[in-house]
């Protein structure tokens, strides 16, 4: 059985078809589900094995990218999503989906001590790019986390586009970033095309993210959020240099990883 993937369509989602195409190629059975159908009970999170929050401009980025969608997630679906996550099912938030995961506290997924309750006002955020504007360009990212079920054992670096204005991953001053390293939560980092660390250098690190962070996962490793769009590099002809002989689809492996994991649940 192909795992069923719920692709959440919020008000302003626009890379839902891109994500569906990637999941189909990776062997899943994706379904675009309007947020209103989940609210009305016409559809249920529990009927799916994977959850995808695709890119877009939910609520036009009003009051901060992903913020109002995060409020929706925490108002209407807090239990459903917590159950989904605790069950260990794969969850991925891309771009606007990542922003919503972070602003709802689903990532980095801290828990209050001795409690199952999620910390909503986490000390991390995705803020305005250091260049001060939206940017669309191809980047190279390195899979780091071996805890994250999406990036574990990926042998190849991923090239894919970014397309965002608020992808600058930052933490509050007192936030102990070391816990990220300890818990293997840094899933993906921006690197130069030759494989060396971007080290904050623009445009390899396109937005100024601390430690070149392009994506993080929760401590359990089943929830991944990332700013770049691996779903836009699943065919060789999407690569900017395919006419020069480049023949990759390096974004696909990440989705295959997630689908394989969901199939074995």
């Amino acid at each position, binding site marked *: 059985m192909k795992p069923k993937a719920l692709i959440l369509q919020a008000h302003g989602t*626009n890379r839902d078809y891109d994500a569906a195409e990637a999941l189909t190629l990776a062997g899943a059975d994706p379904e675009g589900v309007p947020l209103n159908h989940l609210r009305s009970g016409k559809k249920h999170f529990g009927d799916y094995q994977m959850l995808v929050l695709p890119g877009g401009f939910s609520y036009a980025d009003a009051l901060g990218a992903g913020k109002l969608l995060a409020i929706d997630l925490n108002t209407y679906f807090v239990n459903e999503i917590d159950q989904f996550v605790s069950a260990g099912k794969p969850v991925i938030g891309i771009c606007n989906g990542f922003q919503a995961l972070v602003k709802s506290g689903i990532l980095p997924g801290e828990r209050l001590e001795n409690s199952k309750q999620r910390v909503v006002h986490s000390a991390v955020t995705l*803020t305005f790019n250091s260049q001060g504007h*939206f940017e669309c360009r191809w980047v190279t990212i390195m899979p780091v986390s071996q805890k994250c079920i999406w990036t574990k054992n990926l042998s190849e670096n991923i090239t894919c586009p970014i397309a965002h204005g608020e992808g600058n991953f930052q933490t509050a001053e007192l936030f102990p970033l070391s816990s990220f390293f300890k818990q293997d939560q840094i899933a993906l980092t921006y690197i130069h095309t030759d494989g060396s660390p971007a080290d904050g250098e623009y445009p390899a690190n396109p937005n100024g993210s601390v430690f070149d962070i392009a994506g993080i996962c929760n401590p359990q490793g089943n929830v991944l959020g990332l700013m770049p769009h691996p779903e836009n590099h699943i065919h060789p002809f999407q690569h900017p240099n395919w006419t020069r002989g480049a023949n990759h689809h390096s974004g696909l492996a990440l989705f295959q990883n997630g689908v394989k994991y969901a199939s074995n649940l």
Partner: protein
Amino acid sequence: MSIYRFVVHFTNFDPRSARYLSDAHALGFHNLQRIKCQDLYFIEGQLSQKELQQLALKLLTDPVTQSASWAELPAPPSALEPGTAIVEVSLRPGVTDPVAHEIIRAAHELGFGGVRRAATGQRFLLTLDNESASTFIDSANKLAAQLLANPVIHCWVVGEIAPSFLQEMESSGAVEIISICNLTDEELLALSKDRRAALDLAEMKAIQSYCVKENRELTDAEFETIAQTWSEHCGHKTFKAKIELNDGREINSILKTYLKSATDEINAPWVLSAFVDNAGIIDLDGENEVSFKVETHNHPSAIEPFGGANTGVGGVIRDVLGVSHKPIANTDILCFGPQNVTFDQLPQGVLHPRRVMSGVVAGVQDYGNKIGIPTVNGAILFDEGYTANPLVFCGCVGIAPKGLHVRSPQKGDRVIVLGGQTGRDGLRGATFSSMTMDAQTGEVAGASVQIGDPITEKGLIDVIVRARDLKLYHAITDCGAGGFSSAIGEMSSAIGADIELQNVHLKYAGLAPWEIWLSEAQERMVLAVAPEHVAALQELCDTYDTQLTDVGEFTGTHRLVVRYAGKVVVDLENDFLHDGIPQRQLKAVIRDRVIDNQEDPLISNYQLPNILLQLLSHPNIASKASVIRIYDHEVQGGTVIKPLTGVEADAPSDASVIHPLGAKGLAGVAIANGVNPEYGKRDAYRMAFAVVDEAVRNLVAVGADPERIAILDNFCWGDPLCPETLGSLVEAARGCHDAALLYRTPFISGKDSLNNEYMGADGQRHAIPPTLLISSIGVMQDITEAVTMDLKEAGNELYLVGKFAPTFGGSHFSLVTSQHKNESVPDVNRITPQVYKALHQAIKAKLIRSSHDLSEGGLAVAAAEMCIGGRLGIDLTLDRVPLQTPLSLFGETTGCLLVEIAPANIAAFELIFKDLPLIKIGQVTSDSILKFGDDAILVGSLANAFNPSS
């Protein structure tokens, strides 16, 4: 009820502030030392201190990077440090403010039910050097007027602003009766002018005869309906006019004579719809069809660049929705005044070209990115003629399974409006766009500016594509210029409709019936829906957060009837409304063209490398990467050939290639354009020919099949009542016709924007250069056959294909050297279509490693761009070209491309080009140097010149 004022600021770094500072310096505010930008929110309601704190924390700030302060109004003014000033800006009441709407909605969602109304604004803290107290406020005001606010949509104060909530108003059913029957000719013209109807005497008299025939006067709503329907914008009066030429000839409709006739004569079986729908449609792959439409939004962009361009994009996307297609790509071609003019050089009332450009680009970015359509092709041109009249061409491509678009409302169908609510926005936009602007235009036509809401339009896409597949409607059109009057008027022209305006959802109360009927509020579509399908459509709308309103019925009475609360406010005969406009009779003078071969003697001591570097950094030629990269050109995952290409992704592609989701196999489309105002200034006929050629050649360069290319025309001209202006328009249209026939490229859609003139306070008219945009779309059955323009491998041969006939007339060489200005502009050679076919054959046979067209800057610029793309060199052998070197290098020609061939393929390639013009012109080298004759330039230097920021 209390009003609270929240100020939100970044605790460390705010990227917006740096941008405002550099913009201010560029505009000449050199004594501005610092600018800090903060967000303002005004919230009205009953809220406890704890709730206010929670609102700030949970809704209004990002707690990691921002902090907020708040106070109940009236509050004591903030303490200011010496040398600083505050400017606060807020939207005028009634201007669309989606953030305010979201604040109320989300506050309620979070449980703060006491929030009643909201408004937003911005606060700027300015630090100014060397200012005396008396000039301080003046400087702050000036900065506000020139950079921080636009009076058309904003209020501002130096100091702290009071929130501007809309005043509650009584609904109004007021109808004014306009007496027409007994007016004299002068009075008729005065009426047209007073109501900004832009109708001439013959048209006013036709209205008068109708009144006399019906034995009554008109209501304001009726008069406005006629004015909109008969406007240049909606009615294309000039293109349909009878034109008497100075050589005695007469043309009965430019549109029929030159444009439609070409399409008819070519009679391509793959053209599925030309000139009848909101967008032209061609076959893609036998199962799917693609549509293409390009619109202009010039006048709105001149007075409010962001909103004008924003709604230009939104409008053309709705044109594609109006043929039931899913939008898959956007294009934008922009023309601005030189960016370095000083304020005293600007005509009064004109925004600075820098501000126009940054606003327009931001408007295109905002709409395209948010709605999720890749912006894949465009151009940016600069000319003094565009200072007072910027041009904004917005294009959109769509896809649908073949044959699903329907066009016939049935008697008894409901008139259904989908999407945004109706306000005063954009009143009289169609007539506004048909007039010459002056310094007052901004104020008087302030209401003509609309602000877009791309997320609402995204909802329309989601609903309409599904409703189409479920066959829930019989006809569909978009609300553009003229609002309902035009959309419902056109849709019911063959059947009639009865509308109740009270059903329309308003943004705010107080609109007169004619205002509701004419409003150009954005993001609205009108559908004809059988009564039994309304419920299913409603369900779709609920799912995608889209508003549905039933405003009336298609009747079968052949009259357009509009009511307010039951009372009839419009009752017009369809025949009169749509066919009653008298044909305009115009006069045109065609100037003699500059004679061929009137070449100036060549100056021998040109520094050729310097000229090449100057050309590469000329604003028209230099890289547009800083604009291209802020548009999302990757969303939807189908951008196969991207706008920038090559090793470093910094070289300009000739065209973009899209492989849309849903296309059969590897089918796709290539999209490009041609535009050349420099040629337009000299010879409109040849210009038209040259830009059709360029639009076609760009597509052929990337691998599109030259026998499957369709084109679109967009004419932007000055006042057609000026006979010379009209003469050049006629000549350009004739050029379009002849070129379309030569290349066998049918026109599938077109649009004209005339009266692009500005009357300065000095009484001088500022007109644009004649500007014809040809947009082109070509089908590819296999997108993996596409070719890019970057050099691929050292050792390959470089050929020049096509009839090489460079001249300096209208060239960028003559722009940068000020020489050879009087020569004729390039002509087209009849052999060119065969060259393109041969090239296509070679591309299909995989013989071409790279190809690039020769355009502005000629052979040298084309070669330099190919070097930049591949970071490889070229050794050019000009001795095979029997011309003087500067002319070969920098003269401009039509019909030519440079192509790169691997040594193993030379024989096969030359065979295909047997009997066609072909010059072996150089070799690709690994040393990253472009060599021509005794001169050589490092490719790194070329790249630096081409990329101004690097």
